[in-house]
């Protein structure tokens, strides 16, 4: 079965390769946003040492990890699954043997990997060269970064899947997404680091499932107990995948009983 998943991974990788042009110019927007936010944090930290446990180097690194992971987590192909469910194309998946989730995950990770190569690494590396960022200096450190990115990709897949799975029950999935996305985006720390959140919100942001997408990877890159961070991601990845499994089973049953 692993051969199939490897093949799907490769297929996903290839699939993203067709969007070459969009990749490069989307990169420009990413970098631009990174530059703006860098200026913002440089100004904020002008006369301060550390806020919320983060110093300037941490904050700047955060900015560029956000730009690196944004395309990975909030991928542009979020509507493919729900659309397929609604259009009936998803039924083909139901007739194939083996685990659907595993197949979808493999394909998705392939696509993410393709994006990661350019869109994720280039801004981060470029920024690290120009600015004083806090990045790992050891091979082990970078290995953890790789693992963290992969797990972030898995977490992203799970969230996208769960959001898209609403298509099994309603045709208003896009509307549902429009209303929930802002909160997920905010609470996962893509707007400001969760370390700046007040009280309970901060704890939720640091330890909750959304942490697996951004907050934990930032910790891994900046070296704030990276091992624990990766562990946290792993735990949540497992939990989220289980949740996806459960939702998928429910959804399949609904499809099979009610039709498209």
């Amino acid at each position, binding site marked *: 079965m692993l051969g199939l998943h490897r093949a799907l991974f490769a297929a996903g990788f290839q699939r993203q390769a067709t969007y070459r*042009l*969009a990749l*490069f*110019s*989307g990169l*420009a*927007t990413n970098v*631009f*946003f990174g*530059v*703006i936010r860098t*200026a*913002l944090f*440089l*100004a*904020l*930290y*002008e006369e*301060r040492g550390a*806020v*919320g446990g983060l110093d300037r180097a941490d904050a700047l690194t955060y900015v560029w990890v956000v730009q690196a992971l944004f395309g990975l987590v909030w991928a542009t192909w979020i509507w493919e699954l729900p659309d397929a469910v609604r259009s009936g194309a998803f039924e083909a998946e139901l007739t194939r043997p083996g685990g659907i989730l595993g197949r979808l995950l493999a394909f998705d990770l392939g696509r993410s990997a393709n994006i990661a190569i350019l869109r994720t690494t280039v801004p981060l590396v470029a920024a690290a060269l120009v600015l004083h960022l806090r990045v790992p200096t050891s091979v082990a450190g970078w290995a953890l970064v790789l693992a963290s990115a992969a797990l972030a990709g898995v977490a992203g897949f799970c969230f996208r899947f769960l959001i898209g799975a609403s298509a099994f029950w309603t045709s*208003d999935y*896009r*509307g*549902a*997404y*429009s*209303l929930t*996305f*802002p*909160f997920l*985006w*905010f609470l996962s720390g893509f*707007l*400001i680091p969760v370390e*700046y*959140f*007040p009280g309970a919100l901060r704890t939720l942001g640091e330890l909750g499932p959304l942490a697996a997408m951004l907050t934990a990877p930032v910790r891994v890159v900046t070296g704030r107990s990276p091992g624990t961070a990766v562990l946290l991601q792993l735990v949540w990845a497992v939990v989220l995948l289980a949740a996806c499994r459960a939702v998928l089973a429910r959804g399949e049953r609904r499809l099979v009983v009610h039709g498209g």
Partner: protein
Amino acid sequence: MAVAGQLAVAAVRAKSLQPALLVARTLGAAVIIVVEAIGVALLIDRFGGLGGWATGDVLLLVGIGEAGLGFGLLVGDTLEPPAFSLLVREGRLDSLLVRPVPVLLSVVTSDVQVREVGRGAAGIGVALWGAWQADVDWTPARAAVAVMAVVCCAVIVLAVLLLGAASTLYTVEGSEFVNAFTYGGAALAANPLQIYSSALRFLFLWVVPFGLAVYVPSLHVLDRTGPPGIPASLLVVTPLATVAFATVAGLAWRRGVRHYASTGS
């Protein structure tokens, strides 16, 4: 002009065929801006200020920028890189060219991104919230300045989209760099200009004048003096620069259409 209204109404009608989705999307667009504003407020409160500007001051910038972006996108969404490139590649531009109206009018009214009203309205709300926090004394003059700021910002956004579309008429491919200047421009204008390098400042004051549209009018509303090099008196330049930029974009578009007519699709 009446034709424009009719066409626009038709576009809105088409969008309203799924009212629940439209409402959700519009609301969603508004919520994003509100959440963003909350984030900014949280951030600046934590740090006690940004370059000498208080939270309310910054929120005014955010609000005006997003309002301008929202209304600009409302009108110009058909000019955005992926949509316009598709229009050209599918040959729909030809169908629009055989109409007895200016082609830009046809393009712009072929779709109206109603959900951006959410962004626009939320932007205004955020601006007002910021002004309230900053204890702004709303005189008619200040109100007029704020309105002009939003209008100029919207026009600049539209002009950027127009320039992008003009380039698509040459290359057929969409230019994603446009997004860096529309969404990016609003994001940049959301912070006081003094935090940026002189290169960025120059670019966004004198080339793509978002700074003149958002920052300078805000100086007036907040009764602040700007940093050396950006006096509040620059306000007179704002409408002039906006018109100049829009004119450049319009000329580029005309050229683009002429080029398209010479080379076919």
